[in-house]
């Protein structure tokens, strides 16, 4: 919204603190008795005023971030301040901007200047804001289950570490993307001796790919993907656009590439067993089990190698038995060879042979350095299975001297909880650094209650050459401590404050000039300046082609035994809402329906229609899935597009012993597998029906568009949509002289991946209440923006279409005519306004809405806990019970822009971004004056259509049809336009 020279982001720096801020005030200013006796009226009032203001800030002396009690000049109460920072919800470390109102962050948005994520922020990252205000957060540290002071904690840890006696200190963390945190961990380990074990519970299998990278490129780091440079993208079971390693970055690249008009359209072929968001968005989707995927990869490698000089050894590699889709493999190999240097093959697999084959294909096609970059690798996945195996072995053998768990909850996520608990009890010192009471924390001696990332200083380097800074957006709410500060305290470093340590390291190692001004600029931008020295990478060994071929040959030789016909393949998957479940206490994320199953609050076992039929299972029937001796029970959801031999089990739900207040479906699919890695593929599973049922909290129960003109796909970007004409009927309403602007939105369904970032953005921006599983099951969700999902074509291999649906602000709004009290009216600028305090709740408007986008407050839904209420956006009314609500096109942002324009004395409004638009990683949402160039050109594009145009309500939302590029000879998507399932 702001222009670049407006200093859009502030830093929270002590140099900015106002002299009258409580930091400068004495701890207590209670007058003595004699003073009190001498009080006069004026001095009494003065003292009363001071004590009132001091009473409002009774916390510890503040050194860093604080809400302004006495505002500095540039802070105006009621006017938002923005802080550039870095998202730490997952290792992808996207840039973010925190909107802070009166000292509390109320919204997280993507950082538009971030070189990788570029303005988008996923649902998971945005949900992290709600975790800050979670009433169940740890509020103080504890020793042996008793609340303790930080001094006691430090004493206890120091004493424990002093008695290690040569046994190692193990730090268990998810992949550490922060170079500063890594250096603090290195410092701790250097002091006490030990080892860092990295593990990503939400990650699809990366270990094999890391090993393959080690063999092919000399170090266990994944090459960074450059989807934007590719013309042909082939992905094997990696959910790049959904819950993959860097969903925002990859979605942004993928969508930008699809929009690039000057180049041939990106063709995307996806091979998978369990339907993922990436599969749903691919142009072509092949169904294959894990073993078949290996076969396909090796077959492709043979074809590619046969056409590549000097690769005879690879062309002669053995093919496994399971290599289906032979004809398609031939055609795809030809396409790949035609796109040398412009193609990209990616896999997420546990199978080293498949990972190596894919690496070899990319190398033979000359893609390295073009569409993937081994020299500038991604740093978001560094967990190796061999490290994890070592830790589990060491724990079992009692060889660990001290265990420090940073954030993770292995006790909950690993299957053999009792054994781990016993092993932990034998470790002399166990420390959990966590912001939540987790199962692991309950089994640890010391619980170092951690700050929420929005209360911490940190930095992140998700890719070689990219470094961003994280700064606090709020003063710590509780007596917690930054994990970095805890590590520094325990390593006995001279600098013990996270901010000092970070600034010192940046000035010393990162910034070109070690002066305060450079640091301040970096803090303000949230990014390291151009040309800054960023984290050092492990040195690469020169790769040995002969050895790499030999490694592949060896890997191919190991093959899994064939599976009997009555055994299905279980695939443990992560959903975009909860991923590994580490934020499963965030109500926004629980309420967020999965874009594919459309189920919220609940894990569903995904079964192909054919499989469901043969098992006699329907939606909501509880099935028992057994892998070896372990089993879980889950409600079934029949999902077209699922491989008939594969059952998909999301891992993010439920949790053992976490006392989760929002727990609804205590399922933990992750416990199926004994390895401790969360997302496994190719598990042999027996599935049986139980006689129990469950009412699934589904937000959409009908999958077909019934041939109605609602959603379309076309075969090429210039192809027009057929069958979505706008009737040229006579208008019964008096013509209105249109004023400027007339707000209009264009949604590009070709860019939209269904990732649901916009849904959470809308929820956060507009104070949308969370209603819970039972209410969702009753179809009473409050979301203003939902992403409808339609299946087109055959139920076995359907095309999937996503369509974000929100209030269309119709010019002829049917809701407006029927409201008896004129609580919903049309504005001059084309908005359909909802006047909450006038609404009496007849629900007539919702009944008369063709899009069913209005939500009624059936109960009082807003949270009552004071902490949870801190997240509310003060710009948006909190709706009462009995009132209708709906999307307003973020009218508060439009009004803010209007006020800004008026204050500046200009007639033109500054650019307005709606919350959904801002968060969209794919930039699929365009918003502005309907007559403006950017909107008008899209509204009249060939692919443009309006949903239900034939009803004649004249919606202010235009959709652009999805483009699906089929291989030559394959059926055109025309055949199934707007089609059936």
């Amino acid at each position, binding site marked *: 919204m702001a222009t670049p020279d407006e200093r859009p982001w502030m830093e929270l720096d002590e140099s900015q603190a106002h002299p009258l801020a409580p930091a400068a005030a004495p701890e207590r200013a209670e007058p003595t008795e004699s003073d009190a006796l001498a009080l006069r009226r004026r001095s009494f009032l003065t003292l009363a005023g001071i004590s009132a203001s001091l009473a409002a800030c009774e916390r510890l002396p503040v050194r860093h971030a604080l809400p302004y009690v006495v505002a500095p000049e540039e802070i105006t109460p009621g006017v938002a301040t923005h802080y550039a920072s870095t998202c730490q919800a997952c290792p992808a470390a996207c840039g973010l901007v925190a909107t802070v109102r009166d000292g509390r962050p109320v919204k997280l948005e993507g950082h538009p200047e971030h070189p990788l994520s570029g303005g988008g922020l996923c649902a998971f990252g945005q949900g992290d804001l709600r975790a800050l205000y979670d009433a169940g957060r740890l509020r103080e540290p504890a020793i042996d289950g008793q609340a303790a002071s930080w001094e006691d904690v430090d004493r206890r840890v120091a004493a424990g570490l002093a008695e290690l006696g040569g046994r190692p200190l193990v730090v268990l963390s998810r992949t550490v993307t922060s170079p500063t945190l890594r250096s603090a961990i290195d410092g701790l380990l250097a002091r006490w001796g030990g080892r860092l074990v990295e593990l990503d519970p939400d990650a699809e299998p990366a270990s094999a790919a890391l090993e393959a990278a080690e063999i092919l490129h000399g170090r266990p780091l994944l090459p960074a993907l450059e989807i934007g440079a590719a013309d042909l993208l082939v992905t094997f079971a990696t959910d790049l656009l959904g819950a993959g390693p860097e969903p925002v970055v990859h979605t942004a690249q993928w969508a930008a590439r699809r929009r690039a008009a000057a180049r041939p359209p990106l063709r995307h072929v996806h091979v998978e067993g369990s339907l993922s968001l990436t599969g749903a968005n691919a142009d072509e989707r092949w169904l294959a089990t894990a073993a078949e995927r290996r076969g396909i990869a090796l077959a492709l490698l043979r074809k590619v190698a046969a056409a590549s000089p000097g690769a005879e050894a690879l062309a002669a590699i053995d093919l496994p038995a399971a290599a289906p889709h032979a004809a398609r493999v031939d055609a795809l190999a030809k396409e790949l060879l035609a796109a040398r240097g412009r193609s990209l093959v990616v896999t997420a697999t546990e199978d080293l042979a498949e990972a190596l084959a894919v690496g070899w294909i990319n190398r033979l096609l000359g893609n390295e350095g073009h569409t993937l970059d081994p020299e500038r690798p991604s740093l978001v996945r560094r967990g190796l299975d061999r490290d994890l195996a070592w830790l589990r072995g060491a724990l079992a053998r009692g060889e660990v001297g001290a265990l420090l768990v940073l954030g993770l909850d292995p006790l909950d996520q690993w299957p053999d909880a009792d054994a781990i608990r016993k092993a932990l009890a034998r470790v002399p010192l166990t420390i959990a650094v966590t912001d939540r009471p987790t199962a692991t924390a309950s089994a640890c001696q010391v619980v170092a209650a951690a700050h929420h990332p929005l209360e911490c200083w940190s930095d992140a380097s998700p890719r070689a050459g990219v470094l961003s800074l994280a700064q606090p957006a709020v003063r710590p709410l509780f007596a917690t401590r930054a994990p970095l500060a805890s590590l520094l305290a325990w390593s006995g470093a001279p600098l013990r404050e996270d901010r000092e340590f970070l600034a010192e390291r940046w000035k010393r190692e990162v910034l070109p000039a070690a002066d305060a001004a450079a640091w301040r600029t970096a803090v303000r931008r949230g990014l390291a300046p151009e040309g800054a020295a960023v984290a050092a990478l492990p040195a690469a060994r020169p790769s040995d082609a002969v050895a790499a071929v030999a490694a592949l040959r060896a890997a191919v030789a190991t093959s899994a035994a064939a599976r009997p016909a009555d055994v299905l393949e279980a695939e443990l998957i992560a959903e975009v809402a909860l991923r590994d479940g580490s934020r499963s206490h965030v109500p926004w994320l629980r309420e967020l329906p999965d874009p594919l199953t459309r189920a919220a609050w609940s894990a569903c076992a995904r079964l192909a229609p054919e499989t469901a039929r043969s098992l006699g299972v329907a939606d909501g029937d509880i099935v028992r899935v057994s892998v070896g001796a372990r089993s879980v029970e889950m409600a079934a959801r029949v999902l077209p597009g699922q491989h008939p031999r594969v059952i998909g089990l999301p891992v993010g739900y439920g949790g053992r012993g976490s006392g989760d207040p929002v727990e609804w479906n205590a399922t933990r699919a992750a416990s199926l597998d004994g390895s401790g890695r969360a997302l496994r593929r190719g598990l042999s599973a027996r599935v049986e029906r139980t006689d129990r049922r469950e009412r699934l909290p589904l937000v959409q129960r009908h999958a077909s568009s019934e041939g109605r003109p609602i959603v379309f796909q076309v075969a090429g970007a210039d192809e027009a949509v057929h069958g979505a004409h706008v009737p040229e009927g006579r208008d019964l309403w008096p013509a209105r002289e249109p004023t400027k602007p007339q707000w209009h939105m264009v949604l590009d369904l070709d860019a939209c991946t269904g990732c649901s970032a916009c849904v959470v953005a809308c929820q956060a921006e507009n104070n949308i209440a969370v209603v819970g599983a039972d209410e969702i099951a009753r179809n009473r969700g409050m979301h203003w923006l939902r992403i409808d999902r339609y299946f087109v074509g055959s139920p076995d291999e359907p095309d999937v279409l996503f369509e974000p649906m929100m209030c269309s602000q119709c010019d002829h709004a049917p809701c407006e005519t*029927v409201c008896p009290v004129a609580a919903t009216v049309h504005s001059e600028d084309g908005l359909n306004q909802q006047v909450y305090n006038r609404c*009496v709740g007849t629900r007539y408007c919702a*009944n008369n809405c063709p899009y069913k986008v209005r939500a*009624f407050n059936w*109960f009082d839904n807003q949270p009552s806990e004071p902490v949870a209420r801190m997240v509310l956006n003060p710009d948006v009314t909190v709706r009462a*019970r*009995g009132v209708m609500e709906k999307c307003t096109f973020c009218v508060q942002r439009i009004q803010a822009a209007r006020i800004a324009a008026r204050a500046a004395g200009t007639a033109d409004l500054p650019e307005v971004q709606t919350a959904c638009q801002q968060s969209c990683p794919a930039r699929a949402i365009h918003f502005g004056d309907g007559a403006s160039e950017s909107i008008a050109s899209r509204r009249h594009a060939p692919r443009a259509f309006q949903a239900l145009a034939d009803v004649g309500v004249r919606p202010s939302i235009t959709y652009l049809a999805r483009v699906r590029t089929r291989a030559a000879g394959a059926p055109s998507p025309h055949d199934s336009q707007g089609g059936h399932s």
Partner: protein
Amino acid sequence: MSASAWTPDRLGPAELWPPGEREPLVSDSLDHGEVTRALVAPVEGRPGKGWWIAFVTAVTVLVMGFSLIGWTVYKGIGTWGLNRTVGWGYDITNFVFWVGIGHAGTLISAILLLLRQQWRTSIARAAEGMTIFAVCCAGLFPLIHMGRPWLAFWMFPYPNSRGSLWVNYRSPLVWDVFAISTYLTVSLLFWYLGLVPDFATLRDRARGWRQKLYGWLSLGWDGSARTWQRYEKACLLLAGLATPLVVSVHTIVSFDFATSVIPGWHTTIFPPYFVAGAVFSGFAMVMTLVLLTRRLLHLERFITMRHFDFMAKVLITTGLMVGLAYATELFIAWYSGSRYERFTFWNRAFGPYAWAYWLMVFCNVVVPQVFWSARARRSELVLFIASIFVNIGMWFERFNIVVISLHRDYLPSSWSHYTPTLVEVGILIGSFGLFFTLFLLFVRVAPVVALHEIKHTLALQKEGAHGTH
């Protein structure tokens, strides 16, 4: 025919009467004194056991219903089974159902008065009372279906200090407010006006506080020829005023649906279809009620099988009208070529609520066909069962219109299902409690058959008898 030999029990089908003679509407052995004594007995005497059982039951159900309404207001509309797609369910179904019931009274007293149908006299009073009480029940539902019923007064255009805020005259709900309140006012006036001579009779017979009460209620009625003349004129005027209302109320209620954009609602056939349906359901309810009252208050000499014969004929006629409307709807849905319309009606007949649709067709179209038989038209049992079926069928007609159209409209992604909660079912039953409580109280304070009109009918009957002999 020998007048003295006639007793109600021996009243047979009309064709049993000799040609050229008409079956009397009321027993012509009655004299005026007997009429008065028989009809004021329930008002003046002590209530019997039957009345008490009925009254206690009705009040219990009423209290239960109002407790559930209290619960709804306290907790929110979420206590009902409604959802994001189906915003109206039992609430508006009950509303339209009760408004429809409220139709018969004014139709009988106004239109049949204008058409000089003498047979109306015996049932008019009860039907008018039923109208008032049904409209009270109907009015309850739009009130309690609101999310914030304490703000219901915002539906009225009254001068206020809220700036330019005013009601939205484009909304059919506002028209409803006017239509229903006008209808209630006129019906109440009409009913009261008819009661005035009877209140005077009661006043003349009563002593003590009852005399005072009825004296006050009878507005100084003196029984003079001038008063009677003015009374007749006023009745005629009010009948003229009320006649368009009979048509307008349900027309406007139908506009709630017809002016919307929802397939299955957006239908031009709705005004006549609703009016026919309302007459149908109103007569069915009058029949149920009068059958019961007749037995309870021993009014067999005043409300004879000939009355039921007439009512059954109205039922079969209006039943055929609604049947025609159902067929027309189906035809037009197909003929329109609109995929939404076609689907909506296919979904009514074969979708998840098909049972409700076919129940409606059975009750409203098939069941009334029994009245082709004259014997059935004069069998209390058949009449009672058929009238109950029609009541159920007409409730389901409204349910089908409200719920089945809503639950699957334009966007398949929003398709949903509606299952009522016990709270909603309890409130529906409670509205019957309210209705019967009011009706049972009514029969204790005013003659349920108009004294003066029966006497008038008796006089006409005798004149006619002398004329034919």
